């Protein structure tokens, strides 16, 4: 067997590909809905917290800042392990997918809050004054005037963060959630071949590349004409 053949059977074994395709498709679907749930939870919670922070209530802001700092400082894997393996000790069993959604969603929220907040603080003060001077309340000015401008500024860093954290659904493989990587590594241990891992990599590209392209289009559309 020459080098190329060896390479192909190690990484691109068609028989193994065919055999595990159904499992992999199920894994892809799991990854997609997990990522969607994480993004929905993370972005909405992050946006809500950033808006809340704009009101400048001291106590609330203390907790928001603590939350954002902790969420950004802790590796998600640590939180996942603590909740999944620790909480049953207290008689509380949280299903793996839910652990993943809660932890990754919360971590994304911590980052999203900071990103939205940075966007809000870079909206010029004059924009707020123009809104308030025309009789708009604080909340109306926030929603109608400040947020749309903040969101535009926040979009590029937010997209990067969303992608980075959605990919961390792969951490589900350590707590038995059968997403892409989990399926791949199970298949790898059964077959002793690296081919399932290649298949997993291809699956990730198929899932996340369109998302990357979509966000590029979104970014372009979102930028108002200057």
């Amino acid at each position, binding site marked *: 067997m020459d080098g190329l053949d060896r390479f192909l059977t190690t990484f691109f074994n068609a028989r193994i590909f065919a055999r595990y395709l159904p499992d992999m498709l199920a894994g892809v679907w799991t990854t997609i809905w997990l990522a969607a749930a994480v993004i929905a939870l993370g972005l909405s919670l992050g946006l809500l917290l950033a808006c809340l922070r704009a009101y400048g209530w001291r106590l609330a802001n203390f907790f928001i800042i603590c939350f954002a700092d902790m969420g950004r400082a802790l590796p998600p894997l640590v939180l996942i392990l603590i909740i999944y393996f620790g909480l049953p000790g207290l008689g509380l069993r949280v299903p793996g997918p839910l652990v993943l959604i809660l932890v990754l969603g919360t971590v994304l929220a911590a980052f999203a809050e900071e990103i939205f907040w940075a966007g809000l603080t870079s909206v*010029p003060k*004059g*924009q707020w*004054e*123009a*809104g*308030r*001077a*025309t*009789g*708009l*309340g604080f909340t*109306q000015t926030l929603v*109608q*005037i400040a947020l*749309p*401008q903040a969101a*535009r500024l926040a979009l590029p860093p937010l997209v990067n963060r969303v992608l980075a954290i959605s990919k961390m659904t792969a951490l589900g493989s350590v707590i038995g959630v059968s997403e892409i990587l989990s399926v791949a590594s199970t298949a790898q241990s059964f077959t002793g071949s690296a081919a399932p891992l290649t298949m997993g990599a291809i699956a990730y590209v198929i899932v996340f590349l369109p998302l990357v392209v979509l966000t590029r289009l979104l970014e372009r559309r979102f930028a*108002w*004409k*200057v």
Partner: protein
Amino acid sequence: MSRPMLEIVALEKSFGDLKVLRDINLRVATGEMVFVIGPSGSGKSTMLRCCNRLEEPTSGAILIDGKDIVGCSSSALNRMRLEVGMVFQGFHLYPHMNVVANVMLAQIKALKRPKDEARERALAMLDRVGLRHRAETMPTQLSGGQQQRVAIARALALDPKVMLFDEPTSALDPELVGSVLAVMKDLKDSGMTMLVVSHEMGFAREAADRVVFMDGGLVVEEGPPEQIFANPKAERTQAFLSRVRA
């Protein structure tokens, strides 16, 4: 003098230990255009910004058509701000919406006007400032003078009783100043009550009913423009005017 449209009574404003306004008293009659001039740091802009509480007065009262804006609750303040239009030095148009949407926003959200009516009113106000044909343009595609006229239309669309102008032409290229002043003159001729902080002395001379000279947080002198510009009584007014003319 009948009840003034805008009355400032014993207004004081401090930033920490710094007293920016000390006992300002000023009355602007209905339909009157009052110009406020003075060196930078004299407190003119702060005084103007107290009139709609963008700056919170430290003490004193500001009556808009007889109602005090200083003591009122935040919801009452939002309603009163509808009666006080403001035009800023930096225009502050909303960059994420087109011109007509800029003029419609507060009509819909604060005045609760139906959308169709707000649009009609917005277009009428844009027509008034000569920019109806730019209604669908984004603000950043307009010149400074055009942006400022849109800002004036945005304020006018709320049917204010008083208009405040905070150095409306200071950020403009000289050749664009005239178009904004023309709109202001037209506004005055239609009977709008206006309080203007500006360095446009020529315009003040020609269009203002009264000129107020401020320095060091005080009204030093006030009177008709002919008197203030030709025969200022106070030494500080004379010194300021000679510096400006030089």
